[in-house]
């Protein structure tokens, strides 16, 4: 049943949700971004919401209720330790990939140039496959530089 108070809540719930969510986002900003963290955040937001409703039922003003819920939340360090499980460091292969692509494409390009010059010295066609092959190291360079940025 949604009474008039319920309607009020439905309308303003979004706003309140936002304040709690912002606060939790702020608390979690140094956390590893993954599914697990997201799930915990959802759970915490949901439970804080519930606390706010409870406090409001006890006669607290919405503003007070939110602030109380937020203040009482406590220190996030423990949770950080739980969620900050050091994943076995994935070795960064992007550099090796880039090097491999450079050597590989270099060899193939040399091969095309050789065939072109040796068999048909008067028609330049090798430029076409070379152009296509260059996408390989280019893509690897992209992956490599993106990794570097995200570190």
């Amino acid at each position: 049943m949604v009474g008039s108070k319920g309607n009020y809540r439905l309308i303003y719930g979004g706003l309140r949700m936002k304040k709690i969510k912002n606060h939790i986002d702020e608390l979690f900003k140094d956390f590893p971004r993954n599914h697990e963290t997201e799930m915990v955040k959802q759970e915490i937001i949901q439970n804080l919401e519930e606390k706010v409703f409870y406090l409001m039922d006890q006669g607290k003003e919405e503003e007070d209720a939110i602030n109380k819920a937020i203040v009482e939340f406590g220190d996030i360090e423990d949770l950080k330790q739980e969620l900050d499980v050091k994943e076995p460091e994935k070795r960064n292969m992007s550099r090796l990939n880039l090097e491999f692509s450079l050597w590989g494409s270099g060899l193939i390009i040399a091969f095309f140039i050789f065939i072109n010059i040796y068999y048909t010295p008067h028609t330049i066609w090798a430029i076409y496959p070379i152009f296509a092959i260059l996408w390989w190291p280019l893509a690897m360079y992209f992956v490599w530089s993106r990794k570097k940025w995200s570190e």
Partner: protein
Amino acid sequence: MVRSDIIRGHLDSIILRLILEKDRYGYEISQEISLRTNNRFQIKEATLYAVFQRLEKKEIIEAYFGDVSHGGKRKYYRITPLGKAYLNELVKEWSEVKEIIDLFMEGLE
């Protein structure tokens, strides 16, 4: 208010006991703790969720989504058979600890 660092080592027991009685969700647990201790001990939410995480990883409790309330699905926790065994151990351990500390604390005051 009791110093929370003394209770800290027994949070597992407190939370498991409450979940053993029936499946519960986060806020319900923190409320129940305040209620039963008559506000002498209040668990911080941040601590509570850290304990959930740890116990869930050790498969002492498991979570599932229950009914919808106030715009979100409640996440309930239930105790696993492993959790029950663990709680049993904690109970034994606690009675031993209590005896030991009592050896030194009783008769004073």
